[in-house]
């Protein structure tokens, strides 16, 4: 079993065993597999057909679709958790996607690359070019990331949505770091939100 990416591992650790989980942008199903082993009833949405085929051939329930459009089909509170990993910044309207996550799941878990990480800031400030870093490895013209977001932006959005931040985790160089100075130090952030 390949080791889970660090943000996925922390998510897997904090989802209550036996929960109903929707994994949006589930990729090849790595997190879904881990959650299934914890006894969760887990479903996925994935836009890439090859990924979906790999998931289904592992016996995972994954629907090929576009989260921007298809989340609306799910009933309110159909899940205990709605998980969106590394996908928020690719959404047509991340604010509306967050609304949908909070609607279909009691809890929303969202992870994203932090655009305010010092390396990103430095590339932009001193290089004068759109950053290409470990966290943001694709050039500006080819990236799926159309709505870059920072830790501080995300906290603002959560406040605007009147969502409560239940927990938060930050990562740099694949390792968990504390929340102090996270907007500068974190390459990736993971937030767990609930509707107030």
């Amino acid at each position, binding site marked *: 079993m390949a080791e889970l990416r660090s943000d996925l591992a922390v998510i897997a650790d904090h989802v209550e065993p036996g929960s109903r989980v929707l994994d949006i942008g589930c990729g090849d199903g790595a997190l879904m597999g881990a959650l299934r082993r914890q006894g969760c*009833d887990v*479903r996925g949405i994935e836009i890439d*057909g090859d990924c*979906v*085929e790999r*998931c*289904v*051939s*592992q*016996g*995972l*329930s*994954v*629907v*090929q*679709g576009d989260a921007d459009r*298809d989340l609306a*089909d*799910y*009933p309110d509170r*159909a899940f205990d958790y709605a998980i969106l990993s590394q996908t928020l910044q690719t959404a047509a309207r991340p604010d509306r996607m967050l609304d949908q996550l909070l609607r279909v799941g009691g809890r929303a878990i969202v992870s994203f690359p932090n655009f305010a990480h010092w390396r990103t800031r430095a590339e932009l400030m001193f290089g004068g070019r759109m950053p290409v870093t470990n966290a943001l490895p694709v050039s500006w013209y080819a990236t799926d990331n159309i709505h870059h977001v920072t830790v501080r932006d995300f906290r603002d959005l959560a406040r605007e949505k009147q969502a409560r931040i239940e927990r938060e985790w930050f990562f740099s160089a694949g390792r968990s770091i504390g929340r102090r100075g996270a907007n500068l130090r974190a390459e990736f952030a993971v937030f767990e939100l609930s509707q107030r």
Partner: protein
Amino acid sequence: MSISTQTLTLPDPLPLDGGGELAPVEIAYQTYGELDRDGSNAILLCHALTGDQHVASPHPVTGKPGWWERMVGPGRPIDTDRFHVICPNVIGSCMGSTGPASESPDGEPYAMRFPVITIRDMVRAHIGLLDALGIGRLHAVVGGSMGGMQALSLAANWPERTGHVLAIATTSRHSAQNIAFHELGRQAIMADPRWNQGDYYGGHSPDSGLAVARMAAHITYLSEEALTAKFGRNLQDREVKTFGFDADFQVESYLRYQGSGFTQRFDANSYLYITRAMDYFDLAEEHGGVLANAFRDTSARFCLVSFDSDWLYPTGESRHVVHALNAAGAPVSFVELGAPHGHDSFLLDIPALDRVVRGFLDG
């Protein structure tokens, strides 16, 4: 492995959606693989419009290999070393199950006195067969095209009878375009003087009409890309056009061959009845107009597969079912596979389909 068709007479009359009942009802079916002692490894395989029970063994009339031999068999994605596969011929058909060519209680063939049946009636007959065989809960119901309609109908109407539902290249309702193509086929049959209001048994059957019906339908099973790749504008066994109405083009020759071959193995009245059943199919209508309501009581896992080149039942139709299943909270997988052949892709060599079928049935 048994390869001979078995026939079972249902113990009770079969109530029909159109009112009344059908009796007696004979079901011709084939099985592959052994049934577990606890009866938990049975898969009901539902065939398409002109399919039959000869899934993985040679067709008795044409001698051709079974229609899904690449999918069903020892070590195949539907592995008969592990699963007990049951494939019944649908009622209304002509391969051994009761249909318009069968003898009615008065000793004459039913012909057009055969009642108009629905997809749900076909599935009700399958359930009667399963009851008679002592199979309570299936591991899975599997079907492509009209077989997929039966799979969805079984899940909606007998939700306790299956654990998995695999519906490939199918739809929850026939569209205006689907109905239109079927009506074209039916009118071709009925316009053949030999059809004789359906009363042709013992005489000449309406082969010309049936062949035209098959030719029209066959076009809908293939993508434009597949036709172009296979035939283009190539001429058939000639260097120049004849300036006549012979089959100058390869595609014409191919269609004529498909049409006439079909009349060797299929009954024209069965074609009328089965296409009618498909046209009447609207799973939402059966459930108060809300498709999600069809799946409220199911505990089964679902998998839907569409093909990007299928214009008969395009991906949107599968998505429509997936949306309803999501709304009903049912566990569902869905994938649109890339394949150039059109609707018939589900019968052809698509390795990704094999992986999805195997993975879903094992999961």
